[in-house]
């Protein structure tokens, strides 16, 4: 059995309430941190743990905390990014629904480490039940003396506020989130200045994902070194993976970093294989924006080594034969699914969610959707594939925030690995309306 740090007590009835959570050893991290550690000690433990941001970019959390500017007389803020909207990702919602106190505990520990006295949890507007659950958990923690003035008699004050978002994907981008939190239009800011210097209301701010903040609890409890023992190289600890698609048992799994992709998909402990006896066609390993991989590249890297669920192994081969960890939104596609249709679906999402600031993303996402729509419905032209390639290339890297890149990568990887299927859609439009292409033949690749 793999070690579980975040979801160890998830099956205990009533774990969402303060009393049961406390009975199971909850809020020990708060007591330990506030009573026996200085804020810098906590930051040091998080640095030692090697924890990397769980929201998508994988930036080391300890380093991010280290960058926080600390001018005298200026408040500092911790903002928890609960605007989970990446298609295929639902781990934060799961965590907030079933074990909200883990997030609150993590928030107290992290706020203490950063010297923040007001912290915000920004939750996506569609997640109304979760917003209520988290608000209730905050009230319970406050009643028990873990929030408010003079927590546990240590003299540390902290208030946590929950802010529902308006339901925009773009507000999951940290600077757009800050704009939204300030009551402005959720447009990403131009960096620099980074939020660590000028974030919320112009004050130094750290924005962390729900899972990253929750992970600070086991780090404080057991020590950073203990946490770093799990995993491989620079991918330490455990990671929540939200597995979706045609799997026997989709759901949220806590895995130890370093688990092989093959084991994750096929073992009985995790997803239990592909549903209905189908064969695996493709994998999106980290949420809709990371490059899609065909089976042979998903299970083994281009060098023939087994693909592991770590930041490094997933990225092995760059974007030509690799992908990225992303937010852990794992989607499996079986042989009965259409890559063109799926790419259209993803692109439609990015078109809808583009904020419209940067010209390439604003215009390009809509253009890609139209071209893909044309191909999917049998009106495509062979030159459309090259056109799509050009459009995504013109978006990638040329925008303020990573939404442009996120819109470009799925299109680029779909064309790179599944060009045959696109061509088949164009050459056999009538047949493409009646059946799916099936598996891609191994080894066919069109790098660039």
């Amino acid at each position, binding site marked *: 059995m793999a070690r579980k740090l975040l979801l160890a007590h998830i099956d205990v009835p009533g774990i969402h309430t303060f009393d049961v959570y406390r009975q199971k050893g909850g809020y020990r991290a708060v007591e330990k941190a506030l009573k026996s550690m200085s804020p810098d000690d906590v930051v040091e433990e998080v640095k030692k743990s090697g924890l990397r941001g769980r929201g998508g970019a994988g930036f080391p959390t300890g380093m991010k905390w280290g960058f926080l500017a600390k001018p005298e007389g200026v408040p500092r803020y911790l903002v928890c990014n609960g605007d989970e909207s990446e298609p295929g990702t639902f781990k934060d919602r799961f965590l907030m629904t079933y074990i909200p106190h883990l997030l609150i505990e993590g928030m107290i520990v992290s706020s203490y480490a950063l010297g923040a006295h007001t912290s915000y949890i920004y939750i996506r507007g569609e997640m109304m039940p979760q917003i209520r659950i988290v608000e209730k958990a905050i009230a319970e923690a406050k009643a028990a003396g873990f929030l408010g003035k003079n927590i546990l008699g240590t003299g540390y004050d902290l208030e946590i506020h929950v802010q529902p978002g308006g339901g*925009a994907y*773009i507000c999951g981008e940290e600077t757009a989130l800050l704009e939204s939190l300030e009551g402005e*239009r959720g447009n990403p800011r*131009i960096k620099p200045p980074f939020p660590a210097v000028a974030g919320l209301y112009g004050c130094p701010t750290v924005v962390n994902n729900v899972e990253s903040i929750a992970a600070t609890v086991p780090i404080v409890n057991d020590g950073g070194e203990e946490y770093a023992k799990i995993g491989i190289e620079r991918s330490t600890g455990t990671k929540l993976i939200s597995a979706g698609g045609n799997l026997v048992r989709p759901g949220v799994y806590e895995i130890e970093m370093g688990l092989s992709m093959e084991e994750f998909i096929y073992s009985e402990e995790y997803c239990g294989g592909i549903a209905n006896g189908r064969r695996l066609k493709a994998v999106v390993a980290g949420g809709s924006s990371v490059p899609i991989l065909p089976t042979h590249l998903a299970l083994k890297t281009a060098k023939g080594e087994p693909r592991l669920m770590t930041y490094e192994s997933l990225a092995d081969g760059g974007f030509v034969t690799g992908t990225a960890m992303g937010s852990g939104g794992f989607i499996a596609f079986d042989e009965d699914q259409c890559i063109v249709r799926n790419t259209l679906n993803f692109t439609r999402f990015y*078109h*809808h*969610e*583009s*904020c*419209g*600031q*940067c*010209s*390439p993303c*604003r*215009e*390009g*996402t*809509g*253009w890609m959707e*139209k071209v893909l729509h*044309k191909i999917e419905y049998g009106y495509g032209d062979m030159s459309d594939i090259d*056109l799509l390639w*050009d459009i995504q*290339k*013109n978006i990638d*890297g*040329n*925008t*303020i925030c990573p939404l442009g890149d996120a819109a470009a990568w799925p299109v680029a990887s779909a064309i790179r690995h599944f060009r045959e299927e696109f061509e088949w859609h164009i050459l056999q439009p009538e047949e493409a309306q009646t059946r799916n292409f099936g598996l891609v033949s191994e080894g066919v690749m069109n790098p660039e």
Partner: protein
Amino acid sequence: MADEKFKITIDGIPVEVAPGTTILNAARQIGGDIVPPAMCYYSTLEGSGGKCRTCLVKVSKGSEKDPRPMPKLVASCRTTVMDGMEVQNITSPDVLDARKGVVEMLLINHPLDCPVCDQAGECKLQDLSYEHGLAETRYAFKRRTFERIDIGDKIQLHMNRCILCYRCVFVADQLTEKREHGIIHRGDHAEISTFIENALDSDFIGNVIDVCPVGALTDKTFRFKSRVWFSKPVDAHRDCPTCSGKVTLWYKGEEVLRVTGRKDEYNEVKEFICDTCRFEKKKTADWVLEEPTPVSKQSVIDANHYGIFNPPPVIKENTRLQEANEEQLARTERLK
């Protein structure tokens, strides 16, 4: 140190600038062809820039201390220089490719109605597509259109032409007392609008016309009066209680067709003018004339030589061409 200077090079040309200067402004200090085009940046409007992505440049050396190149192309209007930075603009094929891509994106939904657009001739998008655009479009779909809304009797909003540079929003935020318009919706259906079609009305709101890089916001009092290149700009001033009163008058014959702020070589107004000067003072008697506005050699206004037709030699030799240009030749004779 107040007089500390950063040494940087842009396309190999060295320049010394004050710390905190952006790459774009450093390039403007050098001037000439190496200045990146800017559709959304406006030096007098705080917070503008970074959106249109036409000013992308490549930083091939980050600084003296940290010589690593920047991983992506950066928006030169919002990236400040570091000591020892090396920037590539027109010497980098990546930059030119990306710029071409951006121009294509800006044009796919633009109506390209230049023949009936009042901005034609002084439109930055027109210049940009001339310099970087493709000869034909690869966009095979219906262009985006918006419902027409009326934003008052002085300013014409033509949303289909808008490139969402946000300059007009910054003008309203920073020059007028209250902002009545803004961006609604998001993505490619975002549009400039007022709250329930209010009319824009405040002393300085007319400046949105001057800052608009395209023909999305034009002067209703100048609407369809003349092509820009048939009018002659003359600098003038008046003693205005509200603004600096320094303007450019656009003459056609004896008639003042429109009044605008004085634009510099980067099409930016340094001293914004009030709506009284812009919309109501349209007689020569209202103004103290200074001198004809210097016009850049690249401008279509200059190329027209204020209406004097300079026939190329081929016309003088060819009777068929002389017939075709009869009217212009006759006018040239009159003006001699």
